[in-house]
């Protein structure tokens, strides 16, 4: 990785190394200065007062607010990823169906859910659940969150799987057919297993998206981290410190998931994904590769 990280530029010579170190020091000083200014301002406003931070160090804030909030976040994310996986799998099959109208309808549905903001779907489905009392009322908000996350992420996963199949070398399908497998058998035994394995990193990083998006549940009173943090802040009056803590929790979890995805990707590469697009081997990437399949951006957002 480090050796191959980039061929954009030459390995540094002695002068360049000195220059880079100088840049490093100057940059560090600049950043330290900015940070110091921020800290000073925050301090001036009392954001570092003991009264604001003490509850965070103490256990009660965690047991009464943040941990239940974290549980809410994880629970909604877990349910959503399972349902979205199922949704995505089914719609991927429908979108690859040999029957035209099925393909077309499935495509329209998937494209619609990809075009509508998750938050709007959340507000809407929550409103519907409340209005028609569709689920036990303690689950209104959870249902709203899960519905929106499932529809959106399921549609994205559908596209991920589809593009996974598309990105397999054409020869894999042809070899399957040549051995005498039918179209269906080829799809099932040759293409899908490889597509899903190849897309595993993308699917894991989709978890990051879902986890982040649970925070939208805040808007429909779903008890997740951000919401519980707000409730806690009404009591302790320490919103800014709490938001910092919550951001840290999200970053730690999501960063670990990202690392997990990268690890899986490396493992797959080691085990020899000769299935990877031959172009990629011939030189698909002069910036070092963690960018993954092109869909990734789309999915990381929202």
């Amino acid at each position: 990785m480090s050796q191959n990280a980039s061929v954009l530029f030459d390995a540094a010579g002695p002068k360049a190394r000195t220059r880079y170190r100088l840049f490093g020091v100057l940059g560090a000083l600049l950043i330290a200065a900015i940070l110091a200014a921020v800290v000073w301002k925050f301090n001036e406003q009392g954001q570092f007062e003991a009264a604001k931070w003490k509850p965070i160090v103490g256990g009660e804030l965690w047991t009464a607010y943040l941990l239940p909030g974290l549980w809410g976040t994880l629970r909604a994310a877990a349910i959503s990823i399972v349902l979205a996986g199922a949704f995505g799998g089914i719609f991927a099959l429908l979108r690859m169906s040999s029957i035209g109208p099925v393909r077309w309808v499935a495509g329209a549905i998937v494209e619609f859910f990809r075009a509508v903001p998750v938050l709007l779907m959340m507000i809407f489905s929550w409103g519907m659940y409340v209005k028609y009392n569709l689920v036990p009322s303690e689950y209104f908000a959870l249902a709203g969150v899960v519905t929106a996350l499932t529809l959106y992420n399921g549609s994205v996963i559908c596209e991920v799987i589809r593009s996974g199949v598309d990105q397999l070398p054409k020869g894999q399908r042809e070899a399957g057919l040549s051995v005498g497998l039918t179209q269906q058998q080829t799809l099932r035994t040759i293409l899908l297993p490889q597509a899903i394995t190849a897309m595993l990193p993308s699917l894991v990083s989709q978890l990051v998206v879902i986890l982040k998006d649970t925070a939208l549940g805040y808007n429909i009173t779903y008890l997740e981290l951000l919401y519980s943090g707000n409730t806690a802040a009404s009591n302790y009056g320490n919103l800014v410190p709490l938001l910092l803590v919550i951001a840290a929790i999200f970053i730690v979890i999501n960063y670990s998931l990202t690392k997990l995805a990268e690890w899986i990707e490396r493992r797959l590469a080691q085990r020899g994904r000769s299935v990877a697009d031959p172009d990629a081997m011939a030189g698909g990437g002069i910036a070092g590769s963690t960018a993954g399949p092109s869909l990734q951006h789309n999915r990381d957002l929202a």
Partner: protein
Amino acid sequence: MASLFDQFDVLGAMWMTIKLTAISAVLALVLGTIVAIMRLSPVPALRLLGTSYVNLLRNTPLTLIVFFCLLGMWQTMGIELSPELSVNAFRYAIIGLTVYHAAFVCEALRSGVNTIPLGQAEAARSIGLTFGQSLREVVLPQAFRGAITPLGNTLIALAKNTTVVVTIGVAELAYFMADVNEQASDQLTNAFIIAAAFFVLFTIPMGLGTGWLSKRLAVKR
């Protein structure tokens, strides 16, 4: 449905969504390019900075980032972007959207760079171009073309993500939906249809446009 238009400022909300999208898109492109150049630069410190930026911003919910902008910069540090509070909130919304999406712009550009075969930069250097020259003449022109599609995806995501700034009281379409839900909940379905239709109509041209552009400008290999 007509009554929704009378009772709520639907067109204003749509216009707000468009403004948020357009301005943040331009700023995010600029900031994202700077971060991308840092991430791709030979200077380890800059690379570290760029990478940290992306990892921090990308892994934090946008809602939180928007809060931080308003609560951290305005409320705590007292930086007021306009004496008019609605304008102030609007500008902070733009800052929040910009810094968040810049991380994705950076990744889009990086993946654009990744579409360039290894040999291109080496060939550039081996005819004697310096790092800067090879970046300018060979790498970036191709990278931007390869990045059009992911940049388009980022733009679409940005358009949809403008809904998040409802939490700081910017009157865009999620604000409209929440408002309807609060004050005329029997109209919620209509409101959803209006808002969803807007987003479908707003984002489809973006997808088609970037698709067309990337085909037209594609570097044939």
